[in-house]
């Protein structure tokens, strides 16, 4: 809109306006352009500056930086595979909890709740999104992880009796585990995924919903037939954005994941994600060790950029179709 109206006054301006203000006008325009380009500059600088500092570790390890799972800084071994795995495992657990919950809440807000309840629920979710991640981390380490071993024991041992499932749980050692971390991260990404899916559900044309109801559909049939198909792309985008957020989550994960270095599919065993390993070791690291940790940051940066590129293009396509 603004772009199409801009040239019109500019054309007539030259005769009416003195030279001075015109120059100020251009100056302001370039100032705002510079501020916009700053984003590009910062992203480029992030990539350049972190990669440069990580080079010593990259050079030492070569491709092994990504393919080896042996991380032993005092022996000069910097394999990050275990942390890449941990990042994905924790994010996956988080999504398993958060996606159904978020979709449920978004459906409640957009389809079930009366206007008043809707406002209150939205407000509560927005406030929860504002709770700092370190607070979730504190809760995780001093409440959840304390209660967890007993709880894990009670769900783990009956389920482990089922053949094949025993390997999925492992020993609940001290409550700091992939599962605890995934659960905490789920709490943090639920408000984010909820708010996006809510917006997407809201773009369902009223006429389609009314039409479904008029044909005698129950509310659930209306949701399944009108709301969900309309929102599919937007929901995928929301999940991807949640995934990006989960992968970058640092502080809470650092406190409850238990700093293990092994690749394990056991929910109760400890591990580490890229971000949490950086946070836990950076204070004591020097030399190649430190550049190895910065290298973890580079890997994380690349992974989240990819996920976010995918998410943004999916969301952009979904909203273009809706608009």
């Amino acid at each position, binding site marked *: 809109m*603004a*772009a199409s*109206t*801009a040239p*019109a006054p500019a054309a007539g*301006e030259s005769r009416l306006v003195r030279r001075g*203000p*015109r120059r100020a*006008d251009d100056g*302001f325009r370039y100032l*705002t352009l510079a*501020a*916009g380009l700053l*984003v590009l500059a*910062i*992203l480029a*600088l992030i990539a350049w500056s972190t990669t440069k*500092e990580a080079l010593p570790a990259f050079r030492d390890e070569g491709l092994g930086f990504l393919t080896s799972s042996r991380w032993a800084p005092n022996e000069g071994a910097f394999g990050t595979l275990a942390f890449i795995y941990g990042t994905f495992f924790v994010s996956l657990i988080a999504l398993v909890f958060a996606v159904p*919950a*978020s979709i*449920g*809440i978004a459906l*409640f807000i957009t389809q*079930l709740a009366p206007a008043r309840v809707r406002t209150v629920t939205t407000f509560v979710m*927005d406030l929860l999104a*504002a*709770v*700092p*991640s*370190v*607070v979730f*981390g*504190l*809760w995780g380490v*001093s*409440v959840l992880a304390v209660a967890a071993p007993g709880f894990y024991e009670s769900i783990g041992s009956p389920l482990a009796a089922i053949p094949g499932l025993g390997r999925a749980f492992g020993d609940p050692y001290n409550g700091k585990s992939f599962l605890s971390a995934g*659960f905490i991260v789920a*709490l943090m990404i*639920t408000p984010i995924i909820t708010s996006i899916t809510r917006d997407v559900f809201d773009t369902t044309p009223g006429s389609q919903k009314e039409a479904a*109801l008029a044909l*005698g559909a*129950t*509310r*659930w049939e209306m949701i399944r037939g009108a709301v969900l198909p309309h929102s599919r792309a937007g929901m995928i985008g929301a999940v991807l954005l949640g995934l990006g957020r989960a*992968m*970058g989550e*640092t*502080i809470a994960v650092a406190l409850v994941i238990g700093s293990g270095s092994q690749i394990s599919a056991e929910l109760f065993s400890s591990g580490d994600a890229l*971000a949490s390993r950086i*946070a836990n070791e*950076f*204070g004591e690291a020097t030399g190649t060790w430190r550049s190895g940790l*910065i290298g973890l*940051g580079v890997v*994380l*940066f690349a992974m*989240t*950029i990819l996920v*976010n590129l995918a998410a*943004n293009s999916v969301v952009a396509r979904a909203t273009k179709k809706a608009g």
Partner: protein
Amino acid sequence: MAAATSAPSGRRSLTRSSISPGRRARNTLATVLIYLALTFALLPLGFVLYHVVSKGLGVIDGAFLTEELPAQVRGASGGIGPAIAGTLVITGFASLLAVPLGILAAIYLNEYGGKKPVAAVVRFLSNVMAGVPSIVMGLFIFTIYVLHSKDGFSGRAGGLALACLMLPIVIRTTEAMLQLVPDELRHAAYALGTSKSRTIVTVVLPAALPGITSGALLAVARAAGETAPLLFTIGASRQYNWSLSDPNTALSAQIFSNAQTGFPNAIDRAWGAALTLIVLVLLLSTIARVAAARFTVR
């Protein structure tokens, strides 16, 4: 819903009773699942808030909020005064950088760029930048500023990292608010012979100001709660430090380091700091939301 009114006729019709049991069961099941999702999500979140408030209240008093950090993490004495000061100084500096720059960039996107390719690229990249993990912002400032400036670990470095985090949030919310300003206002200003830059500064910005303020406050609230960008940038300090050039501390950093130690006294201090931080953050975001709700540009 409307079908219920035709119930009295009793004939085979659109009434609820004509819905087959299977369909009705599925509908009820779906409704129950939705309510379950709501409960399961809100329950732990409620627990978190409950624990923070109940454990935090026991710790907080005047001395706790003002005293310097304890010399021994183990000990019971000491407060979080310097951390509160640090959070205010660092977040304040970050806001002074990110809010004006973000508003300028949003003005470019909405008032000048529109659908031009450059604007599309900037808009896209600012969305991508919003997804960059906060810990990466911390590493970035560590590698580009802490290692090379004479400040080293300092409040200024922490502020720079937080500013990187806030910038895309400010851009996105400000652009959304500028889009809401009706074009008629701009046309009226042009018709009076006002230059474009003057129109933006004296007409468009004031019209969008409440929304922009609310977006900026949300970004500030987000930044004030962040820990990861500060880990590698602010260093550590036990005393009050209002200068940007020296190492500093912050509420979030104190919660993290105290929680890591596991000593009971340290955990208590962490709960107290957590409640202080949450109150600060919720205050900022509530003001922001009330401002947005009350003054939304029509």
